[in-house]
């Protein structure tokens, strides 16, 4: 049942991003909800599920995007994988701390997209200041919010093996 709900959520996430989020985007900067979701799933549920969710969301984004094929799929799957790896080596992560890895990932993946486009150096520098940095900050902030909501109401106890050890007292607190 909950898997079904989660799949429906994943299927509705991109349409939500492509319609409502576009209308609400401040200064025409849109948070990448798919990246944030892949990261948080990787963080809470481990690498494999992070990669699976990243592949699914990235594929949908690629289908409806003008970007080179597979780019979203690879970057989102990579986000899920990296998040799982980070979580495995962390004792815990408070919501505000989620800002840094999400912002960093958003920045790096943004660089990948910038380099894959045919923009010149000037355009790339301009995009770095006006898009890359603001989007990384916005992604990080939205990530904090989503992390807080999920941690507070949806998944109080992480199922990840790293944090599972924490709850059993086998890892430093």
């Amino acid at each position, binding site marked *: 049942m909950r898997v079904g709900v989660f799949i429906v959520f994943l299927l509705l996430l991109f349409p939500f991003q492509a319609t409502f989020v576009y209308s609400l985007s401040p200064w025409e900067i849109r948070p990448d909800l798919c990246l944030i979701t892949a990261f948080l799933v990787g963080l809470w549920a481990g690498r494999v599920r992070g990669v699976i969710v990243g592949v699914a969301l990235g594929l949908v984004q690629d289908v409806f995007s003008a970007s080179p094929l597979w780019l979203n799929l690879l970057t989102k799957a990579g986000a899920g994988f990296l998040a799982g790896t980070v979580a495995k080596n962390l004792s815990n992560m408070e919501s505000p701390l989620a800002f840094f890895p999400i912002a960093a990932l958003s920045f790096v993946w943004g660089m990948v997209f910038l380099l894959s486009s045919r923009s010149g150096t000037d*355009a790339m520098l301009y995009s770095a200041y006006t898009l890359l940095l603001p989007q990384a900050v916005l992604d990080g902030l939205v990530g904090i919010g989503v992390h807080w909501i999920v941690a507070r109401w949806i998944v109080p106890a992480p199922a990840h093996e790293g944090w599972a050890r924490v709850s059993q007292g086998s890892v430093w607190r």
Partner: protein
Amino acid sequence: MNIGRFRPGRLLGAGVQRIIVVVFAIAGVAVVLFPAPAQRLFRTVGDPLADIVALPMAHMASVDRSIRDGWMHYVALQGVREQNRELWSRIQRLEGDLNQWRERVLASERLAALQEFQQHAPISTMAAKVIGRSASNWYQGVILNKGDEDGVRVEMGVMTPAGVVGHIVRTGRSTSVALLIIDPNMAVGGLVQRTRDEGVVQGTAQGHVRMKYLPPLSSVAPGDAVITSGLVGMFPRGVLIGYVSRVEESEGELFQVATIVPAVPVRQLEEMLIVLASQPSDVEMSLGVAGGAATSRKPAP
């Protein structure tokens, strides 16, 4: 995250997890090395998924539009907004008509000596609705509700009666993605209507449009209309792209660059026309010579 009873971590050991990651990495490299099979695989997997996702997206788009419209009607005065919208659409229509007439007049003037006049070939278009917009900030695109089944193909032009909007870059079974003219990856052959100088019209990272490779001696000036040159198959000759707002003439540069204000507010569009078949006018194509008129400039506001 407890997202259900299915737990891959329990079913799959650490070794299997590593294998999955390695397979995924190899697949990533294969995608880069073998783009054609990768694209076929992408279509096979992506098309059904696109059909599923497009359904809620169309509904969400209409809900989003209703909310936005309701909100705007509430904030702004309803009557004024409606009137403004009507007037705006009428201006767009008239500008499109005006430009077509300008082109016809110019063509007939140049061909007076030959006593031959040939009208522009009709453009076969198909209306499409915008059901979504670019989900990322890196590409300026829109998602349309027409795809392969409707005859839409990659590289087809997208326009409104007022002018050029962009071109199709990806198609699914029932949807397609159009790259807007303000995107740096979009380029189309342009022609300054008054001076007949040709160049390449391309989007910029700032969301503007620029016309590059204009001859250094060109007399292009702010207010000049820029139309499609018809040299690339996406659009027939004579579709309005926009109006020159600024001309940069750097010393030592081989070409001039003009900044263009698009004729169409591409970010706000909700319906578009996909150019299914464009047949450039033989008359126009046979004329690479100058022959402009002072009418091909935007009237002062």
